[in-house]
């Protein structure tokens, strides 16, 4: 048995804020080509409210994951928080969430950074920690109030959402890991320097040498390792910086778009960075049936991708209704204008 096969997902949950900014508001404010949102295949993006941040959203996703896991929070041996929008530059977000969920003090807890892939690195670490017997359960959270320079094309998609996964022994799981692989290189496609408020990116450079190369690299490694083929998967979920890249990378891998669309959330809420691929997994788990196989491939700039083969177990159905689904959050929405979005995301400079 390879180590991954001892570990599964005991609980999953997501959170999307109520507020939505139609991308037409960004077009109107900054004078973009009105066709831009259509080309990105994104209609509107979710916006965290004035009292929300990556910690509060991560807490809410974790509450939903705990509802499905049905375990005593004190049994969780690690809280690993993946984000690139930490409310504190120095002071762990993970301890605040762990304390608020009743997990402290006997737990590991830390924040990880790898652009949009930090939570996925946390997921791989959690698989190792649970498989080794070091801990019984780990709470992995991907949460971002994604930043973008106002007026930059990135602003169309940078959104807010969170997803949490509780990993634990396979025999208690709703889905178990069959195998996983990681592909990383030093690629300067997107970055944010210390003390800089907004990230910069390499425009077209974010595509071929970054997103496509690393996801294809990780998925091919996984397939070589397992002997699995694209047709063996019922669903394929990729990092979703916009609504078109996941469909393009699927074509490159010979995966039909029908297997991608169920996990494609970005057209409804934008790119939630560390929650981007994981919220796709969350949406698929909300509906998946026992025996189905899921390909998951998050990506983070800088750059790297992980590929996972995940097999759904009989326990999935008893957990699906225990927390709000991703679709429940997608339809719970209220549109706001650019002014309110600017206030909520603190784009307006004022003396505080």
């Amino acid at each position: 048995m390879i180590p991954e096969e001892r570990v599964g997902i005991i609980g999953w949950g997501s959170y999307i804020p109520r507020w939505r900014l139609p991308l037409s508001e960004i077009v109107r404010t900054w004078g973009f080509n009105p066709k831009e949102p259509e080309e990105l295949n994104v209609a509107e993006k979710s916006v965290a409210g004035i009292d929300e941040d990556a910690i509060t959203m991560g807490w809410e996703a974790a509450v939903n994951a705990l509802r499905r896991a049905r375990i005593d929070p004190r049994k969780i041996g690690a809280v690993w928080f993946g984000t690139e929008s930490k409310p504190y530059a120095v002071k762990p977000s993970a301890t605040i969430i762990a304390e608020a969920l009743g997990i402290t003090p006997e737990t590991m807890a830390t924040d990880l950074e790898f652009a949009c892939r930090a939570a996925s690195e946390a997921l791989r670490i959690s698989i190792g920690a649970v498989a080794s017997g070091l801990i019984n359960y780990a709470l992995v959270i991907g949460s971002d109030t994604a930043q973008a320079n106002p007026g930059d094309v990135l602003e169309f998609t940078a959104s807010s959402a969170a997803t949490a996964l509780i990993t634990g022994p396979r025999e208690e799981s709703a889905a178990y890991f069959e195998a996983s692989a990681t592909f990383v290189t030093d690629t300067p496609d997107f970055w944010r320097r210390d003390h800089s408020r907004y990230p910069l990116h390499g425009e077209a450079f974010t595509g071929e040498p970054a997103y496509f190369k690393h996801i294809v690299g990780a998925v091919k490694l996984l397939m070589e390792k397992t002997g699995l083929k694209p047709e063996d998967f019922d669903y394929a979920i990729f990092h979703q910086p916009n609504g078109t890249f996941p469909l393009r990378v699927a074509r490159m891998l010979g995966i039909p778009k029908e297997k991608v669309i169920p996990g494609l959330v970005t057209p409804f809420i934008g790119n939630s960075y560390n929650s981007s691929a994981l919220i796709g997994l969350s949406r698929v788990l909300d509906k998946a049936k026992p025996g189905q196989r899921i390909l998951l491939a998050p990506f983070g700039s800088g750059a790297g991708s992980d590929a996972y083969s995940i097999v759904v177990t009989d326990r999935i159905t008893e957990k699906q209704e225990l927390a709000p689904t991703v679709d429940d959050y997608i339809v719970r929405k209220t549109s706001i204008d650019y002014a309110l979005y600017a206030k909520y995301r603190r784009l307006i400079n004022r003396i505080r």
Partner: protein
Amino acid sequence: MMKISIPPSWRTRLDRYRLKASKCRDCGRVAYPASSICRFCGSRNIEYIELINEEARLITWTIIYSAMEGFEEKRPLMIGILETINSKARIMAPLTDVLPEELKPGILMEPVLRRISEDNEAGLIHYGISYRPVFKRVGV
């Protein structure tokens, strides 16, 4: 700029994160915030419970347009008095994810962790519980 002292903020974190309350073993009533003496019958025969997993009904509320320093960004600031469903504890807390015109007596609300205040851009962020309308009841 407002500045909250670190020790009291730290000491009350479970009151704020988990809604730690006191339940009187004599008269059975629940008080929030927790108190070592029952505020209803004066008994010292107290146990501590958490209200974080309980929904609550909105009893009444106020909408503040002239918010105090540090809360200007949250205008209109909505503060409610709620009663938890099982423990019948009365809680005063901020209301969130709701528009003023959506507030009605008796609506079911649930506790959520939110940023309540912050000292200033470099200071501590104070997290705590706000209530928002339940949008989907789940089997917990």
